[in-house]
């Protein structure tokens, strides 16, 4: 992070006026701090990707296969025939410019090629050249250009500067979704072995061990056992998580990031406490799985096929264990995959039951086919029916705001459930300005597999709009805690906050719930899950 410019400088210097030169005439400059390292060939080979090779984005020669243009052209054509989204989005953009200033990377960097419309034009220009009559006849004046190595590098650079957050798609009069363009473009790049390592290695890990971090089953159990000890210290209760238990009521799946790094770990502890509470009070039997130990899906950032390969474990494990339905933890893109892809890819899940909350009797009608319920929907239902003993005053030291993660926002429409939960467990809640939340929410700047260390400048600039809105409520209301329902957020926001608004900390929703939750038989709590004194318990 030492090369990173100061936050005030970035904010002061960012310039949004377009350059004099046309964008087709500006060659790509692959700049340090803005890109992620090339995929480790070992990781790509683990899943049998094509054209795996050693290469470095900074090198002139990317060691491409000889017929790379042919591969790309064929891949392009295949996908035009398979995805109506791609075909229609290639054809109908009128370049009205409504999307131009909607992208957080454009706002943060001022780079015109981060305007959603130009990101798509990078691909459309080649589409026109290869697949349309006007492009073939008129060439450049029709906005067409030939694929060459410079164009390919440009694709690569900018397709890994899009976090697939879909904010632009909300504003497009035709619903053109840059996430679709990016997903499609990255699929093409993967045909040439041009993934980034921050995606490829988690994918390879997940395929083998069941989670992105490569945690093996015994280690996974060890890590949760470690939390058991912490929770016991704080509450006096042994929460006894269950693993791979056949015949449990519910299989719980959450991103492995929450097992691994703060502050996600506190959210993970929160889940364990919630399940213990529900077991003791109502006899609900929840199991974790070491095989399906990853909610997230970096395959989503690679290709549709890879997404499906990784996602398959959820249903497979639910079937093997014979649970009734699946409960999903707090994660962003995980929920895009579950909400819009899983049933289609790996369903129908006819071996599961239509999800019913056995404690409240609520039928989760909206999940009756996919049979997977979001923890916020589940918790909100429990609270609404008065099934949780809560002491919100334990969160009284917090002034909380809520970040709508891109995917649960624009790929699921989950806005009010988490807010209801927060309001029930915290006394002080302040939303950020309306134009930066809900369907207008801004990405954390690190989504879609871009939360590496080497692209810190990209992440900090991309996160600027979000951070700026947090700063606004921090200054106005004294907000000191940013709540979210996404593991990438929990991994990315601590860096982003310390860069832009260092006074604000980051939490998952269930951590807040667990702090307020009164476990049966617990001892007088003196600290929260982070070991910090509770309000009124300071020395």
């Amino acid at each position, binding site marked *: 992070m030492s090369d990173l410019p100061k936050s005030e400088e970035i904010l002061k210097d960012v310039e949004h006026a377009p350059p004099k030169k046309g964008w087709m005439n500006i060659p790509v400059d692959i700049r340090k701090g803005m890109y992620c390292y090339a995929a480790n060939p070992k990781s790509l080979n683990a899943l049998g990707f094509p054209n795996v090779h050693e290469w470095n984005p900074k090198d002139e020669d990317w060691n491409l296969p000889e017929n790379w243009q042919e591969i790309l052209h064929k891949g392009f054509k295949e996908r035009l025939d398979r995805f109506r989204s791609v075909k229609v989005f290639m054809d109908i953009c009128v370049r009205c410019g*409504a999307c131009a200033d909607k992208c957080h990377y454009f706002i943060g960097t001022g780079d015109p090629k981060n305007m959603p419309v130009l990101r798509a034009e990078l691909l459309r220009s080649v589409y026109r050249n290869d697949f349309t009559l006007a492009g073939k006849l008129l060439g450049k004046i029709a906005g067409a250009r030939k694929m060459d190595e410079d164009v390919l590098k440009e694709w690569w650079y900018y397709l890994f500067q899009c976090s697939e957050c879909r904010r632009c798609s909300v504003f497009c009069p035709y619903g053109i979704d840059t996430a679709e363009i990016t997903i499609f473009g990255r699929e093409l790049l993967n045909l040439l072995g041009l993934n980034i390592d921050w995606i490829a290695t988690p994918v390879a890990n997940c395929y083998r061990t069941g989670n992105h971090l490569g945690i093996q089953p*015994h280690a996974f159990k060890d890590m949760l056992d470690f939390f058991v000890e912490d929770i016991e210290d704080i509450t006096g209760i042994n929460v006894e998580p269950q693993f791979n238990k056949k015949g449990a009521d519910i299989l719980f799946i959450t991103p492995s990031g929450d097992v691994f790094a703060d502050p996600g770990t506190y959210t993970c502890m929160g889940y364990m406490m919630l399940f213990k509470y529900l077991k003791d009070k109502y006899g609900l039997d929840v199991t974790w799985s070491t095989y399906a130990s990853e909610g997230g899906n970096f395959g989503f950032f690679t290709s549709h096929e890879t997404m499906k*390969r990784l996602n398959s474990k959820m249903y497979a494990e639910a079937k093997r264990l014979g649970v009734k339905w699946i409960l999903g933890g707090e994660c962003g893109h995980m929920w895009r995959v579950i909400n819009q892809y899983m049933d289609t890819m790996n369903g129908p899940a006819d071996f599961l039951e239509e999800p019913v909350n056995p404690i409240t009797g609520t039928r989760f009608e*909206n999940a009756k086919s996919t049979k997977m319920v979001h923890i916020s929907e589940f918790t909100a239902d429990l609270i609404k029916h008065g099934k949780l003993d809560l002491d919100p005053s334990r969160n009284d030291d917090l002034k909380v705001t809520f970040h709508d993660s891109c995917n649960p926002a624009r790929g699921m429409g989950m806005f009010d459930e988490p807010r209801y939960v927060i309001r029930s467990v915290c006394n002080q809640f302040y939303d950020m300005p309306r134009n930066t939340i809900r369907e207008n929410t801004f990405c954390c700047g690190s989504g879609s597999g871009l939360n590496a260390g080497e692209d810190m400048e990209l992440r900090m600039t991309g996160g600027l709009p979000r951070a700026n809105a947090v700063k606004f409520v921090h200054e106005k209301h004294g907000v000191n805690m940013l709540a979210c329902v996404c593991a990438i957020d929990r991994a990315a926001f601590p860096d982003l906050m310390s860069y832009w608004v260092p006074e604000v900390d980051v939490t998952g929703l269930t951590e807040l719930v667990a702090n307020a939750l009164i476990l049966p038989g617990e001892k007088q709590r003196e600290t929260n899950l982070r070991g910090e004194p509770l309000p009124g318990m300071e020395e």
Partner: protein
Amino acid sequence: MNEKYLFSLMSVVLLFLLAYAGVEVAGLQVLFGVIIPYMALIVFLAGFAYRVIQWAQTPVPYKIPTTGGQQKSLPWIQHAAIDCPDTKAQVVGRMAMEVLLFRSLFRNLVFKKEGDKLAYRMELFLWLGAIVFHYAFLVVTIRHLRFFAEPVPFFVTGLEKVDSFLQLGLPVVYMSGIALLAGVLYLAIRRIYVGHTRYISLASDFFPLFLILAIAVTGIMMRYFTKVDIPTVKELTMGLVTFRPAVPEGIGTLFFVHLFLVSVLLAYFPFSKLMHMGGVFFSPTRNMTCNTRAERHVNPWNYPVPVHTYEEYEDDFREHMIEAGLPVEKKE
């Protein structure tokens, strides 16, 4: 100056001169008044259908609506039926809002850096310009049916009444004509002078604007200034639509230019971005229900993929699992 809009402007000027010279000098009234209009209509209809069928032949493998509001979930949570439609009827509502009222454009929030604050303000000029332009175009088109129908149907005369209710000038001024001119000028000027929009624009973005501008200007010229003999013009247009094509004497050249430019617009339509008219109905982020967990969507080309099964996983880690006290399927 910019080669993209110069190219488009020159193209329109050339088309104008082509028709003018063709009629005025070469006397090709039949070509410009009969043959080209017929061909243009055929190209428009066939081309439009071709493009739409191409889209329709491409499957929608995944249900990927953009959820612009609260999902339908727990019964006590207010559901945003239009922005996150759960039923087909609600999707029809969302599409109607999109197609008739330009709902998404209405959301436009323009970004501005104000000191160390980033602000996002409602900005409705693009929406307004687009609404004015499209509806004015629609009204003008319907009004032109007076040249293509005998007797003139009630909805055309009714629309003319409404459109001219100010009773300004003679021949009475149609507001739609002025609105169309204003709309197309606004969109063109915006494209040329607003930095980002100019930067992303292609020649094919300017061409239809200039073409429509030329169509509107020639039409207004004929109605208010240079004048044409309306009954004679109608005789020609009625001849076209009753398959009795003939070119009566005494129609000014400007009319043939106007008709030719309209023909060019029709023929150009299916092969250009103007197909957004059909495409808006095909956008999977808008035209699908958001009940994606309640109803399974089928991908017609879903194919089996290699997966890492539980058995393979257990084989990899069995010893460790047993040692850690994790349940296993096979002890050995």
